[in-house]
């Protein structure tokens, strides 16, 4: 690819990444917000491919797509307006947040323009993936071990935090489910025991089989 094509592609991806990043917080539909964030990630991944960090760019596609699908499920579960059927404004300190956001972007932008970073082009453009692989499985092995252990700890931690039962009983002991109708105090559903999960539904396949054999 020539320099001009790379430049055009870079600006397209960069503007798209920023535009989708902005839409994340401005769209009413939570599913759209999630996939706007995914679009921002995909555009940054494409820029990484242009930067010849191809493995990282494509890995971004892979990892962020999975993460955003999971994110979408949580968005639908926790937000009151997942499909954006009503206009929604769930913000606090909006002016201060805008000021800080612009301040952060401008400050870092000034650093980017002013800082005198010594240029040092890639020595081996064709070998970036091989170099990364050798680094991960060689000099940075200890770091990758730490990454692995951290991820295992994360898995354990996430399960511990989110599981319904702990050592001293159910994690939601004493908590109260929300009202189904906010104005009606009698509409509180009964507490559901956490013990009912598992194979409770496994045996229901055989109903309605009368006369089916013959």
């Amino acid at each position: 690819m020539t320099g001009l094509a790379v430049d055009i592609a870079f600006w397209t991806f960069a503007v798209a990444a920023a535009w989708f990043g902005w839409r994340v917080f401005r769209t009413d539909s939570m599913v759209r917000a999630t996939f706007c964030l995914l679009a921002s990630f995909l555009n940054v991944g494409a820029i990484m491919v242009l930067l010849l960090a191809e493995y990282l760019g494509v890995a971004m596609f892979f990892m962020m797509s999975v993460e955003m699908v999971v994110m979408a499920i949580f968005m639908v579960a926790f937000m009151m307006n997942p499909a954006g059927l009503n206009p929604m404004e769930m913000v606090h300190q909006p002016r201060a947040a805008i000021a800080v956001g612009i301040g952060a972007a401008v400050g870092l932008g000034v650093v980017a323009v002013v800082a005198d970073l010594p240029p040092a082009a890639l020595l081996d453009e064709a070998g970036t993936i091989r170099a990364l692989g050798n680094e991960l499985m060689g000099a940075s092995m200890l770091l990758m071990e730490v990454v692995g252990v951290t991820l295992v700890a994360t898995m354990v931690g996430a399960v511990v935090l989110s599981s319904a039962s702990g050592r001293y009983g159910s994690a939601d002991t004493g908590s109260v489910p929300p009202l189904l109708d906010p104005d009606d105090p009698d509409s509180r559903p009964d507490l559901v025991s956490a013990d009912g999960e598992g194979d409770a539904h496994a045996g229901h396949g055989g109903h309605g089989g009368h006369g089916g054999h013959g």
Partner: protein
Amino acid sequence: MTIVTVLLASAVLLGLGTWGVLSQQSFVMIMMGFELAINGVMLAAAGVWRFTSGGEPRGQVLVIVAMLVMAVEAAIGFALVVAVYRARQQDTTEGIAELSR
């Protein structure tokens, strides 16, 4: 595409993420803001690696570490959201302003 333009793009993403984190009330939306900010960080790391490192692979490793941060943030974040919701039926920062109820 130069180091300056890449860093400018990453600064915009980080600013947008910061704005999201500070302005949103819902935990899940705040997490999305963090992710957008880390997105900018990864772009900056990749740009610095590309233009100033001479191909030193540890620059790419830094991006992988940023991905790890994002994965941990997402997993633990969701777990905390679930735990808080289970205990308080709240999913916004205002909802857990008090330490006990």
